[in-house]
């Protein structure tokens, strides 16, 4: 107990150190640090941060887009004529195939969840290009995504085979139980910290780079943005969704695949 409290304190000091180190960069107007906009949202006790704000912006854009798609869907032709229809069909079909190949055709209903998660993470990672602070650079967002994967892993494991699920904790040896529990708990932690660390790291490096003298800020930031925002953003999105699917598929009995 003392150990864990000490660890958290240690980590807090570390983050305070990082915070100080980048506060200078943050003062130059860049969104390295998260900022609390409202500490008690409508008296619910929840706080509104940049993360929340940007999440809402992304949600608004995506929901608007979905509404447009829903309206246009009635005009979709059996033989696609518009580029818009082709685009929508392509992304939905790609997601469907992605889920189908990772989890099996029977579980393609997971596409409903993972499509939203995929699009949300992708837009969150790419929104840094527009000068917003990426919601995925906040542990709250990635932890919520990691927790939802954790929940789905164990929920699916239990409803698809109680016996195999609990037996799995005592394999290969019964005394391996603590190890198995730790590895199960490590899954959401590794998922959320991987995404959080990659995106936050990218934005910190970008923020620090922008504190450099003006003459190195011509052209070079574009390449860095392509790497840290576009490349790392897409890659981390793919990794997160892919790993989530594989972890859930692992807990589903093999015969259904």
């Amino acid at each position, binding site marked *: 107990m003392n150990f864990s409290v000490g660890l*958290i304190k240690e*980590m*807090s000091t570390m*983050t305070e150190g*990082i*915070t100080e180190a*980048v506060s200078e960069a*943050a003062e130059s107007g860049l969104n*390295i*640090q*998260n*900022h*609390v*906009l409202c*500490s008690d949202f409508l008296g619910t*006790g*929840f*706080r509104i*941060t940049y*993360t*929340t704000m940007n*999440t*809402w912006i*992304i*949600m608004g854009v*995506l*929901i608007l*887009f*979905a*509404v447009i*798609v*829903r309206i246009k*869907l009635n005009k*979709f032709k*059996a033989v696609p004529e518009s580029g818009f229809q082709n685009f*929508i*069909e392509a992304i*939905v*079909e790609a*997601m*469907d195939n992605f889920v189908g190949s990772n989890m099996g055709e029977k579980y393609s209903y997971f*596409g*409903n*969840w993972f*499509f*939203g*998660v995929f*699009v*949300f993470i992708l837009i969150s990672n790419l929104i840094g290009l527009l000068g917003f602070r990426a*919601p995925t650079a*906040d*542990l*709250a*967002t990635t*932890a*919520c*995504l990691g*927790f*939802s994967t954790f929940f789905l892993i164990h929920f699916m494991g239990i409803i698809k085979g109680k016996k195999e699920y609990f037996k799995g904790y005592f394999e290969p040896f019964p005394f391996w139980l603590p190890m198995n529990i730790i590895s199960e708990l490590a899954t959401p932690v590794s998922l959320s910290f991987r995404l959080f660390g990659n995106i*936050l790291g990218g934005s910190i490096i970008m923020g620090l780079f922008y504190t450099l003298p003006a003459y190195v800020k011509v052209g070079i930031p574009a390449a860095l943005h392509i790497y840290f925002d576009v490349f790392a953003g897409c890659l981390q999105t793919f990794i997160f969704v892919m790993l989530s699917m594989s972890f859930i598929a692992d807990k589903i009995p093999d015969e259904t695949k």
Partner: protein
Amino acid sequence: MEDFILSLDINLLKDVAFQLLNTVILCAVLSYLLYKPVKNFLAARRERIAGQIDSAENQLAEANKMKALYEEKLKSIDKERENILSDARTKAVKREQEIIAEAKEEADALKNRAMVDIQREQEKAKDEIKKQIIEVSSIMASKFVAVSINQSQQDKLVDEVISDLGEVKWLS
């Protein structure tokens, strides 16, 4: 208002809960408005195309079956034609023979009738000759009786009668 990068405190848990709510809402809306309808649209189209391909294949199979059936029929039609032709030929030959036989019969009948006619005519002619001979004889007798004749006259008369008879006989 404070700035932070990572805070491991109760606020983090609250933020996680809030973000979870946002994510669930976003995913639900995207699923309801975008993913599911488009997926259903694609599935419906896939099904329709599959149905069309299936029905096309069925129709092709049916057409092939019909084709085979008609080809067989055509083959049997050839056979039938041959049968009909040979039938007709044999019938024609029969009919030919019949016609010939009939013609022969008719010719025979005509010939017979002609023969009978000829015979009848002959009889008639004979009768007539007889009658004429009798007439001539009676005329000669009457002439012998009426005129006294010398030897030369008698010879002349006999010659006359004979030449008359000859003429009659030749005529008949």
